[in-house]
């Protein structure tokens, strides 16, 4: 089964966060009957706990189901899941490249959001057939007609007769399944041609090695075949091929032929050799050129990760190694901080990626971490003509050696309702945005385009955007090169000692404001000690801001009689425990939370 290409549909679902992608995927899997309702977990596709909690699909996953259509035929549906966050744009594009069509899910009361638009354009760029589905029509605020008009006006695809559903209640799901059969084209390809297959994801399994997720474009991949990864040049012998069940892998020794989606294993030791976007070909009979669109993933955000207790350095190292097995975009190398001791400089796709890794390290590996301020990659052009890429502010050369510096910028698209346009433009202005354009996509909503420095958006831009638009703004961006910029290194001194882990690079014009806010934040985070603690922000030897943590004057339990002793002791023990969770710098104790809190500086 499945060799008849006309009975295969390879597609994905694209949607803004919370518009119901995972719920719709669940319903499709349920209706196609491969799973009993007992097997159904709330969200089958999101199988990492963390993903379920955040409601975001982090790693693309795929399910093959069988649909008995109204025309009496059985169709194989390969539903390819896509990550739903701007940090994972490249992964999204590779998942899309594995599909022939896409379902666009739009919330019947929210309408089109920036991320929807970005993903639709991405899908159209990949020549995917896109058909819309309007979801959540069971909500009181639903306006399916209005949203259908919006889809037609903004995206220019037919939407009036599209399925209008409630994925939650299961209403009209059959319309979606029929539309998949009717509207999504079947795959094409030549079984006999040289093998070319696109890698769109991979997963490390401790028994089988890396499980590589592929879409075969041409040719056939079979167990025993020697294959080669075209970008990395690594060659392997295929051990197993198969399909994706729901939450399990179903081997098929027949192999995968043109048009099919599935997996193979080849005793591959780590995911470094199976880059998303790479082309798999036959070693003996390779294709002349790889499939288009491959990019080596570049981390955009760097941060130092340190064990809170230096004795756990090796545990952190092991944990990072294990995570790296499954996450080719995670980068790390050892580094040393005067303040924090031994740790790692890690590179991430974005702040969400950082937070996810941090949480997994803490949750799955039980590590207590201190994370330093995230930094983007700056380019330093030195007076001697050399160019240095700077990922750790501590390594910034002496200003006398610097000719000029460059910082990465992104092209950002923000969709916002008209009443908040002013707020959002102010925000972009404050974040050194370069205004590009504004266009109204409907009467009350506009698409704003800005060029923004990456270091202005990685920390709390998304939060600020949400709070200044009461949640109505949505946002998407992609890297758009480097620009020359006036940048300085801001150092933080606590009790006259420089805390290297708190240093960061900042636009010279924002340094004063940033330094002041940093000092204020730290003042709130650092508990009072027996002595007064000055907190200073400095550029070089020049102090630009100062706050003081006053010495504690009173800390005494006035009453301690017979009935009080046990409870008062508990209280003192708790306070003592709290102190243990702090790092000592000189004679000042700084809580771990201080290192991250200084990033959230937008107080509005």
């Amino acid at each position, binding site marked *: 089964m499945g060799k008849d290409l006309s009975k295969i549909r390879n597609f994905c679902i694209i949607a803004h966060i919370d518009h119901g992608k995972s719920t719709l995927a669940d319903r499709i899997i349920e209706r196609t009957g491969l799973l009993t309702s007992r097997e159904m977990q709330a969200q089958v596709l999101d199988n990492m706990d963390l993903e379920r909690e955040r409601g975001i699909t982090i790693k693309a996953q795929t399910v093959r189901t069988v649909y008995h259509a109204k025309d009496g035929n059985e169709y194989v549906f390969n539903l390819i899941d896509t990550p739903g966050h701007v940090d994972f744009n490249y992964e999204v594009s590779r998942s899309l490249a594995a599909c022939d069509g896409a379902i666009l899910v739009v919330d019947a009361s929210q309408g089109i959001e920036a991320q929807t638009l970005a993903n639709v354009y991405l899908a159209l760029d990949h020549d995917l057939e896109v058909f819309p589905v309007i979801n959540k029509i069971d909500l009181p605020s639903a306006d399916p007609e209005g949203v259908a008009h919006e889809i037609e006006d903004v995206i220019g695809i037919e939407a009036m007769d599209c399925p209008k559903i409630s994925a939650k209640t299961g209403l009209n799901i059959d319309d979606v399944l029929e539309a998949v059969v009717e509207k999504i084209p079947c795959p094409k390809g030549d079984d006999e041609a040289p093998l070319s297959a696109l890698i769109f994801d991979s997963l490390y399994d401790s028994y089988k090695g890396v499980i590589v997720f592929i879409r075969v474009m041409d040719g056939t991949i079979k167990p025993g075949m020697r294959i080669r990864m075209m970008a990395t040049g690594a060659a392997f012998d295929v051990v197993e091929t198969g399909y994706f069940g729901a939450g399990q892998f179903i081997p098929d020794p027949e192999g995968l032929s043109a048009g099919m989606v599935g997996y193979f294993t080849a005793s591959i030791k780590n995911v470094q050799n199976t880059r998303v976007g790479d082309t798999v070909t036959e070693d003996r009979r390779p294709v002349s050129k790889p499939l288009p669109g491959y990019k080596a993933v570049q981390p955009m955000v760097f941060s130092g990760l340190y064990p809170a207790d230096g004795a756990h350095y090796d545990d952190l190292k092991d944990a990072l190694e294990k995570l790296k097995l499954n996450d080719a975009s995670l980068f790390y190398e050892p580094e040393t901080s005067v303040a924090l001791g031994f740790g790692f400089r890690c590179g991430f796709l974005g702040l969400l990626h950082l937070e996810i890794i941090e949480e997994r390290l803490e949750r799955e590996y039980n590590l207590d971490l201190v994370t330093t301020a995230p930094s983007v990659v700056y380019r330093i052009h030195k007076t001697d003509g050399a160019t240095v890429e700077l990922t750790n502010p501590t390594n910034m050369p002496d200003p006398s050696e610097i000719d000029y510096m460059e910082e990465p910028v992104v092209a950002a698209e923000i969709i916002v309702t008209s009443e908040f346009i002013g707020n959002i433009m102010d925000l972009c202005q404050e974040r050194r945005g370069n205004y590009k354009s504004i266009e109204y996509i409907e009467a009350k909503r506009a698409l704003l385009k800005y060029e923004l420095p990456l270091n202005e958006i990685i920390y709390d831009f998304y939060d600020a955007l949400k709070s200044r638009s009461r949640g109505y703004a949505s946002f998407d961006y992609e890297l758009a090169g480097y620009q020359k910029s006036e940048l300085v290194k801001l150092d933080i001194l606590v009790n006259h000692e420089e805390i290297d882990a708190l240093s960061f690079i900042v636009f010279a014009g924002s340094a004063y404001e940033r330094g002041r806010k940093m000092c204020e934040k730290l003042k709130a985070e650092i508990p009072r000690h*027996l002595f007064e603690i000055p907190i200073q922000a400095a550029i070089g030897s020049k102090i630009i801001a100062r706050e003081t943590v006053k010495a*504690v*004057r*009173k*800390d*005494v*339990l*006035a*009453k*301690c*009689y*017979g*009935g009080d*002793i*046990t*409870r008062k*002791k508990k209280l*003192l*023990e708790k*306070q*003592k425990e709290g*102190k243990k969770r702090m790092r000592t710098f000189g004679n000042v104790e700084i809580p771990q939370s201080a290192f991250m809190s200084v990033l959230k500086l937008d107080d509005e």
Partner: protein
Amino acid sequence: MEELELYVHVPFCVKKCRYCDFYSGPASKEVQEAYIETLLEEIRSCPFGQNENERVVSVYFGGGTPSILPEEALIKVLSGLREQFRFDENPEITVECNPGTVALKKLKAYREAGVNRLSFGLQSVRNDVLKTIGRIHTYEEFLESFHAARGAGFTNLSVDLIQGLPGDTPETFQNGLKTVLALRPEHLSVYSLILEENTEFYALHEAGKLLLPTEEEEREMAHAAVRILEDAGYGQYEISNFALPGFRSVHNTGYWTGVPYLGFGSAAASFYGGKRFRNALSLQYLDLPYEETEELSEEDRMNEFMMLGLRMNDGVSDRAFREKFGRSFYEFKGSSLRKLTEEGLLESIKKPDGNDTVRLTSYGRDLANYAFREFV
């Protein structure tokens, strides 16, 4: 002879004060009567404190407001205690009194029953402040009760004051203190206001609706209190306690020096046989298991000896520590003692015979928790 102390908790009051987190509240006459029966039953069946050589050196009726009970009820409980335990020749017997709840007749009855010390919860001499904090009495009513106590023959009276109350300034506080001193009570407790969770004051403070003196002003009050009281002949013997010579509270001193105590009544705590335990916070506490049960290890006991001992101005002597635990406190916590000394919280008085004493400095009493955290 082994010393033993007894505590009786009376969880009733006319009205709950707004800063109070004790187990207490208003109750009907019937509820109070039933409670007295429970108390007597508990006392009669108490398995502890029955050794031949144990002697009760102090009894303390605390609350709540013990003086709210009819005098017969309280005396019945005291008699119950006398029947069950061996009393020392001249034990200290204290009753906490709320001004306005004690008439001369009641005080005389107490006196006859052997009560020899009264502790008045005055808190402030300013009627506006008393009202703010939810006290039921005025300063004038306190005066009346105080004079009545003298009239009934009491020669050991204590007065509680609170510093740092809303509406107080260092000046008004000092004036209030001097007003009370003119009455020459034998003992004074001056407490720093503590905002305990689960009190009305705590909630108000969290909501930013409580105008309290600043920390600097509060400490100014504390320091002034020590100065004024010392000048008037009242020695500070504990963080919040002052007494004329010979009038330190025997009962409370016992808590800080490791004397065993048995508590009766709901929420009352006991320390006996190396264990600390507390009756349940319920009027039917006898039907419920103990709470906060704590079996103290040797290390716990050493830590407590230091922590509680340091509350006292006398401090802790190495000889007493060695007698109890067979080793020097330097051996036990030398580095902590050195650190605290370097930080100026602690001072040690070196003796040629090796019997060093450590005690908190005046600065250390402001920041006593810093020192105490070394001993938990």
